[in-house]
């Protein structure tokens, strides 16, 4: 840079001094909402603690960094620059289930993975919520007829919001998350339904043909998940 050039100076006359003055002298006008007026001189509100907590929960969600299949690519896009889920107070993905309260299930769940997914879900602290992303998580999607594919995440864990699509666009996922936040702020949660595929101790299972067949391979205490393909929807 040449040293002869004049230094840049702000021309005080040209900046919007109103705003600046307002800032320097306490609350500016733009902070004075109708609500603020209604409160009058006392800036306190009374609310139910539960309501407040729900609002807090909905406004700061910690998502589990959980990728299963194709949908997780769109999920990554949702977190990243363009769609930026963080703007909706639901941004920072956590690597550990212990630090997360929302699990987005993005992909196909197969028999080998379902018990692991349930374990991850169980490790999340309460209250916890699940967003099912994509057709696979809803019903098995394009793979529903497969010999190994669970017909939706809801067979294994409770799901609060389903976002359909294959894959849903990032916008759709943002919408799903926003809906979930709305529901949380209202104190609504899905009932934890009884699911067809639960983990059980092998020893507790009814003795049938398969149990007999596997008796030599599986320990009594082992947790197992029994898949009854014919009866699942």
């Amino acid at each position, binding site marked *: 840079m040449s040293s002869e050039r004049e230094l840049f100076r702000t021309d005080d006359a040209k900046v919007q001094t109103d705003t600046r003055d307002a800032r320097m002298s306490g609350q500016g006008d733009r902070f004075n909402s109708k609500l603020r007026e209604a409160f009058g001189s006392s800036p306190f509100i009374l609310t139910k603690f539960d309501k407040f907590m729900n609002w807090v929960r909905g406004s700061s969600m910690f998502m589990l960094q959980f990728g299963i299949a194709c949908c997780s690519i769109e999920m990554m896009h949702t977190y990243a620059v363009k769609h930026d889920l963080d703007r909706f107070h639901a941004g920072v993905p956590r690597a550990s289930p212990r630090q997360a309260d929302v699990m987005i299930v993005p992909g196909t769940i197969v028999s080998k993975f379902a018990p692991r997914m349930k374990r991850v879900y169980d490790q999340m602290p309460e209250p916890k919520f699940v967003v099912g992303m994509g057709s696979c998580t809803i019903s098995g999607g394009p793979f529903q007829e497969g010999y190994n594919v669970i017909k939706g995440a809801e067979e294994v864990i409770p799901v609060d919001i389903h976002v359909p699509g*294959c894959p849903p666009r990032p916008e759709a996922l943002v919408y799903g998350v926003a809906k979930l936040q709305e529901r949380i702020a209202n104190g609504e949660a899905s009932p934890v339904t009884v699911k067809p595929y639960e983990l059980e101790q092998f020893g507790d299972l009814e003795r049938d043909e398969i149990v007999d067949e*596997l008796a030599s391979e599986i320990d009594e205490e082992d947790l*197992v998940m029994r898949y009854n393909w014919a009866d699942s929807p």
Partner: protein
Amino acid sequence: MSLQEEETPEIEADESELEALLDDLVVDRDDHMNAPAFVIRPDSVQETLGRLKNEAGYDHLSLVTAEEYPDRYESIYHLKKFDDPTDEVSVVVPTDAENPVSESAEPVFRTADWHEREAYDLVGIEYDDHPDLRRILLPETWQGHPMSRDYDQDRPQMVPLREHANPLQEDQRSDADSDTMFVNIGPHHPATHGVLHLETTLDGEQVIDVEPDIGYLHRNEEQMAQNGTYRHQIMPYPDRWDYISAGLLNEWAYARAAEDLADIQVPEYAQVIRTMGAELCRIAAHMLAVGTFALDIYGDFTAIFMYAIRDREKAQNILEDLTGQRLMFNYFRLGGVVWDLPEPRDEFFQKTREFVDELPDLLEEYHDLITGNEILQMRTVDTGVLPTEVAKNYGATGPVARGSGIDYDLRRDDPYGYYDELDWEVPVEDGCDNFSRLLVRLREVEESAKIIEQCVDILEDWPEDERNIQANVPRTLRPEDDKEIYRTVEGAKGELGVYIRADGTEKPARFKIRSPCFSNLQTLPEMSNGEYIPDMIAALGSLDIVLGEVDR
């Protein structure tokens, strides 16, 4: 294809040589559309493959296909040469229906280990002296072999959720009785790029053994394809194999096999569009690979990952204009593509041009941020070493092979589409380490941009009344009974192939997918034994695996 007809005499010559070479072993002949096939006895697999490998130079075991016929089981070994992938040969090993046992090819080709395990798992053929014949994709306690004929799909199954063995137990110690520890990484872990489980044994800080445990995303893609009709029902599935936006590349693998099988000629105009689309996909796929690789190495979820996603987003926008979808394009049809370039064409061309033009600058940024970064260099240069011969033995392809100095790219060596008319290069690095693989990817992005640019030029000048996007294809395709074909294309991760056996109906009787990631992932123990855990994670990241494709 016309190309093939010209070459016919040469293949004949090769064939008689091969016949002479295998004279005493061959019991019958078979002819696949892509290669001559020799039928051998189940107890001479090693001998046959050994001779083909050592004396005839077939050093690339591309795929092992297993299938069940009403009266027998069959394993097919598809062999190629790294020097000339058009020179193929198949070895067919029938085994009897009652007691399907055949010799393992593992001592000759290391890569046969996993391929045969899969054949055992899904079809039920057993391999004699296979080092470790267990299920690979399905849980250990699975009953029956789902791709075999009498499998009852409605039968209940049971899957255990076991704790892994206690690391303090005696049996976890290595021979030297040093302090070893067993660590499970995954199947839910941010560094495993999906649902992969690594059973890792550590000695202090060092990895002494790692065993990838796959199958957490086994979505029965082969069965799905076998249940679909050729014309329309199969095409959506390839998008979901390598789902990192490599959709069009995968669709091409199916299209190429099915088009050759049904003898469909694709109009040239459609070939140019396909080529352009495929390369856009390659860029998008490599961007994510580079972004997540940096994520694995510095844990950098902010800058580099966001840069990579930003640029990927641009490629995706163009692809969305072209195909109407962001990720699962379903854009190819047998005999062409589903629709022409979007209107207004000028706008589309301009958008694509802008993207391609700014790529060199963007890549400069990546080189500043990544390859020029000392920390990254210290972490990646000379770690995860995969020597050339080892890579070949494992059937590694794509950037993994090219990072190990193997000059092998099907776009050039076995040309399809419009590639042989265009001017571009195959980047090869001979460092054999994590860094080389990264470099290869970045340089490939540059080459893809060159290809796209040329395609745009060609498309722009294409006369309006010759824009033919579809060949005439019969409403239902019924390739003749017992026609077999195996065709491969260069996917983003390497050689992606499809084997189809027709049975005269409108659905394939056997559909087998050769996924590059499946073979590439198999090299992980070679690259990481003796290294530190973070280097193993780096090696895994540099392989750029997609579980959708590993597990299929």
